[in-house]
């Protein structure tokens, strides 16, 4: 039994994105992914499946890796969000991003933002991950191009180079 659809009003949402405070009006059930891409024009975060399977939409929310396609923006209120755009600062590519370039970790690039965030998250918890830990840490990010090996090499290399940052 469906009520006739009523259009709800938008609410005010406030959160930091890549260190900057953002305040906007959005429907509470707008997906965080869509708010980032459409309202804030941060298109680095991608939609690959809309089901939380592929990890292309991954961002960091309060330091935790999450799939932004599954987060209603109201639940991001007051949170600190980091997207791929927040990771390379001042033109100095982070060690991790450089490792992706050196090892061939990015082919078509569509999974790359989410993959780099997942790798960043892993390295922040395990600075010198074993290959098993890398495999497990990235198992929620799908890549159809690389077969993963060069991505794992990139993460391992970034670990060896000392810092993910």
């Amino acid at each position, binding site marked *: 039994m469906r009520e006739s659809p009523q259009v709800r009003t938008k609410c005010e949402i406030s959160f930091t994105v890549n260190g900057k405070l953002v305040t906007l009006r959005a429907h509470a059930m707008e997906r965080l992914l869509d708010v980032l*891409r459409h309202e804030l024009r*941060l*298109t*680095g*975060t*991608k*939609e*690959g*499946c*809309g*089901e939380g*399977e*592929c990890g*292309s939409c991954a961002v960091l929310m309060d330091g935790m890796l999450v799939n932004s396609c599954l987060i209603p923006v109201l639940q991001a209120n007051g949170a600190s969000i980091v*997207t*791929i*755009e927040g*990771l*390379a600062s001042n033109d100095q*590519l982070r060690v991790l*991003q450089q490792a*992706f*370039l*050196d*090892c*061939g*970790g*990015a*082919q*078509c*690039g*569509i*999974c*790359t*933002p989410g993959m*780099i965030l997942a790798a960043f998250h892993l390295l922040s918890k395990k600075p010198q991950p074993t290959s098993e830990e890398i*495999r*497990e840490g*990235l*198992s929620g*990010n*799908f*890549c*159809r*191009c*690389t*077969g*993963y*090996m*060069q*991505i*794992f090499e990139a993460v391992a290399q970034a670990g060896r180079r000392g810092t993910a940052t």
Partner: protein
Amino acid sequence: MKNGPIVGTSVPRKEGRAKVTGEARYVDDMVLPDMLYGATVRSRFPRGKVKKITFGPGIDWEEFVVVSPKDIPGKNCIALIEDDQPCLADGMVNHPEEPLLLVAHPDRHLLPKAVEAVSVEYDALPAIFSMEESERLSQIIWGADNTFKSYLIEKGDVEAVWEAADYIVEGEYTTGAQEQLYIENNGMIAAFDPQQGLTVWGSLQCPYYLHKALMKLCDLPADRVRVVQTETGGAFGGKEEYPSMIAGHAALLAMKSGKPVKIIYDRMEDMTATTKRHPSRTRHRTAVSKDGKILGGEIEFTLDGGAYETLSPVVLSRGAIHSGGPYHWPSVRIRAKAVATNAPPHGAFRGFGAPQSLFALERHMDRVAQTVGLSPVEFRRRNFLKPGQTTTTGQTVREKIDLSKLLDRALELSGYYAKKKKFAEENQVGGCKKGIGMAAFLHGAGFTGSGERYLGSEVGVEACADGSVRILVSSTEFGQGTKTVLCQIVAEALGLRYEDVGIAQPDTQEVPNSGPTVASRTVMVVGKLVQSAAMGIRQTLTARGMLGDSFTPEEFRAACQAHVAQHGKIRCLARYEQPDDIVWDEQKYRGSAYAAFAWAVYVAEVTVDLTTYSVSVDDFVAIQEVGKVLHPVLASGQIIGGVAQAIGFALYEKVIWEKGRMQNGQMTNYMMPTSADLPPIRVYFEELGNVHGAYGAKGIGELPMDGPAPAILNAIEDALDIPFDSIPLLPEDIFAALAEKTASENVVRSVREER
């Protein structure tokens, strides 16, 4: 001169920085002012006549732009080989998810409801869903006999071999549909201006395919259609022909509304409505002598093309030509056909027919070996093509390929013999069975036969006053490294630094038609052309006395400056010319099918877990001869990625069909292997060079798709002593076969006990 070799080293990916910083712009990242969003109303029936279309209540239809077949200015078709596929079904639908109508609105959130609110009444017609039903002709759904295309390839005297044979071995092998599953869904933006014409931007492999299709659909001349490729998030063939359809839809909405229109599919629509790999059935009948030599055989290769012809004739062609593999067939008859069913048309996917026919062949070779009493290794060794011998189409192998040696290397690198022995012992006990298996194969690069001549690809290279050089090709980058490798080639040819060479984003207004980005032809064919065009620039400058025979990059820059000042920009074009030694008879389907073949031997090690019946691939060795490796990291990346997709083809990726519609159109239910499912894939290259390719390169993009599936299934047979001839092979299938084996053994046992 320059600082050292560029070709053969792993220079940075040309567009890599943008990809790792999130700056790369894919079509859904683009927004145009006043843009509308479009969506597609699709058939729910596999086959029938459309009786009535009703625009339901609850939607303010005045706000929507609606396009139906009558709004099509040109011909209602997606022009490809035939014009049989409508852009919008008009009166008759032939597959589930067939497009009927288009709607657009400024608010993308309103589209799903609007699409749901269009109800369509059909007079259902009987539909067919399998190759066998199609062959039976109980329903004619396409043409006179449901057959899109057939080929007959004959060599030698097949009738004579059966008498002489000591063994005749038969087998039937099938492969299922496979979804390309690029992580970026299909998307297009179209804008129409009555003066300028139509422009489309989108995720695609072949800008000129769209250009041709849009001209016909929209009734526009060539200079009023412009196609621009945006950064493309994976393609694998799935964006070879399909983008013409979605671009046509966006264009029609843009033309009707006068506004830019964006259409982006969500994952379910993309999976259920767009192309997949052709399902196949191959039947082998092979005559073999008692010393294990192939005398000849018959190969029947059949593809399920779905509801419209699209590219099926070409997929069929490649599959048929590859069906004999890297072996010497003194006599062979190959009968190939592509038939129609009421499913969305099947299309290009990496390998393009060859993974299907090579799966069958390499499973069959193991079967023949077993029948004859030889090891899989020895049987292949005795039948490998040697230089000077001819292929199934009568092409003489000119290069000095030594497949026996390639095989030896593969066996050594994989530890084949030691493992085989060890597994045989360990399999006596334990809840797991291990096995090792191999596949030997080849893949022809470039278009088949006269195809490249037909394409007449053209490229441009231009130099500007500041000495920077720009490549102009319609060949697209979608992860495989087009931009990087072409820039390497030109930098090497001109003696410049890699950083000084750039490449224009494919835009039909700016770049010539260098042919589609398919068939593993880009580095080999297009690369050779850009190499020529670059040399042409050198020659122009030298001829004008502005450049010596050897020069520094600074001298090159000065020469360009001088030329531009006196004569304007330097642009050199190069056009494909078929080499004299590539001769092909299109009628008889005989001759030199491909300018070059890459050759490979793959070895897979598996464990079958008898508790869960699942297969894990524990080690994988991929060794291939590829001419020249122009970029080691990219080349390895192609092989690893292709092997990963092929492991999915073999063991994981099953399309579940119900009356022509894919039921598992979500990433949750269509099983692509994750990082946790893939083994370390060990890649090795041999390099013999190739006179027809840039710096000796051959094509490699599709090669890795051909070998893993049969190698894995051969390994599983080694582990379990049960042959499996159909992929994808799931744990449920292994369980059923083991249960049946146990049941029949029990019957035998109880019969014995009774006696």
